[in-house]
């Protein structure tokens, strides 16, 4: 039985204004990829924000490797590899400079591993981050995340903007990394083919509520997408 890496236990948002999640519960074991699907505004990015943003207020428990993330949120960030448009790096400096500086604050950042991951992502470490395309920025962030050995990778629309050919390689690299490191991946996606073929589990969010959480194969994602979209 694989250990549970990420768990949501009856998580409901407490914000008085704006969008809140409602009674979300699921457990993601090590070595698996979970997809989060749903319409625009369903709460996919919000769910990820609940994990990475220490200011989020909610009832329930979100835990990584059995530890409540609110206990020491800053230390928990060591266990999270976050890939998103929201992630902020130094735009006027190269990928290598960013990695050297931001890597300093991580417990287990390995610069050689970062360079190796950049090669796999087919990106030069001398490229200026602000001059990268969206897809390249996601790949850079993924290389940075791999370098600090997280327990869980949170990918928010990371593959949008990636060319279809590279996307195949991307998932191959991802699968290899999580198998070697006993990590897990939680990713949001709008791409039906990706959800059907690449995810081990799929959660469907509807208006902040997890309306479905199943192993792929059991869930007819084609029917879901044709009904939803």
């Amino acid at each position: 039985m694989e250990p549970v890496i990420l768990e949501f236990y009856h998580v409901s948002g407490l914000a008085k204004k704006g969008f809140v999640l409602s009674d979300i519960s699921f457990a993601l074991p090590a070595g698996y990829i979970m997809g989060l699907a749903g319409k625009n505004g369903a709460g996919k990015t919000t769910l990820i924000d609940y994990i990475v943003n220490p200011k989020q207020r909610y009832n329930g428990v979100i835990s990584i490797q059995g530890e409540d993330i609110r206990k020491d949120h800053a230390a928990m960030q060591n266990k999270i590899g976050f890939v998103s448009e929201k992630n902020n790096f130094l735009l006027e400096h190269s990928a290598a400079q960013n990695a050297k500086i931001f890597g300093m604050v991580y417990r287990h950042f390995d610069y050689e591993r970062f360079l190796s991951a950049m090669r796999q992502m087919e990106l030069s470490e001398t490229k200026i981050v602000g001059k990268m395309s969206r897809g390249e920025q996601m790949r850079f962030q993924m290389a940075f995340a791999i370098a600090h050995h997280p327990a869980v990778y949170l990918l928010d629309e990371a593959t949008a903007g990636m060319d279809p050919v590279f996307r195949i390689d991307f998932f191959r690299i991802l699968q290899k990394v999580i198998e070697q490191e006993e990590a897990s991946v939680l990713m949001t996606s709008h791409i039906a083919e990706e959800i059907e073929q690449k995810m081990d589990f799929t959660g469907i969010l509807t208006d902040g509520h997890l309306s479905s959480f199943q192993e792929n194969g059991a869930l007819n994602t084609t029917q879901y997408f044709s009904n939803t979209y």
Partner: protein
Amino acid sequence: MTTDRTKKFEQKKQRELIRAFDQEMLSLQTYGLPVSWRTGLHRFMAVFFLIFPVQAVYGSGEWTAFWFLMLSWSILAPTNYISIFLYLKENTRLVPFSQKIKYLPVDPKQLRLVRIGYLLQFLGQTLPVSLIFQCLTALIFYQTLSLFNILHVLFFGGILPFLITGASIWFQIDL
């Protein structure tokens, strides 16, 4: 007991990491003037108006204006100095430092403590210099030195900038 000791050790280690991180960030930023020159200029600003002996304006009509000037100046110098640790220059814009490190494993409390530490270091260097010059100019030009000279420097060169700039640091780090 051991857990508390471990926690304190971790917090100390985090502060050391943050200081090293700050040095690397500073080395990448361009401010027009080199950082050491900028810091020197801010120290000069902090000390300059405190050189004038309070006897020069005491009892005169300029007293209110002088106090207002001291109030602004005593906050301006340390605030300008500390701004290089609160904001980054990016594409001609100033971006809050806390925005860049939002998703990093950096404890906001330790980050604030490090910045307060820089402020204390700055004031710790300027305050004694201001005190010496205030006393010297009072003795040279007015042949008198009162407790008021010393309290004036302690308030405008230490207490006030520490409280105002310190509070500003605490609230500007939005993590």
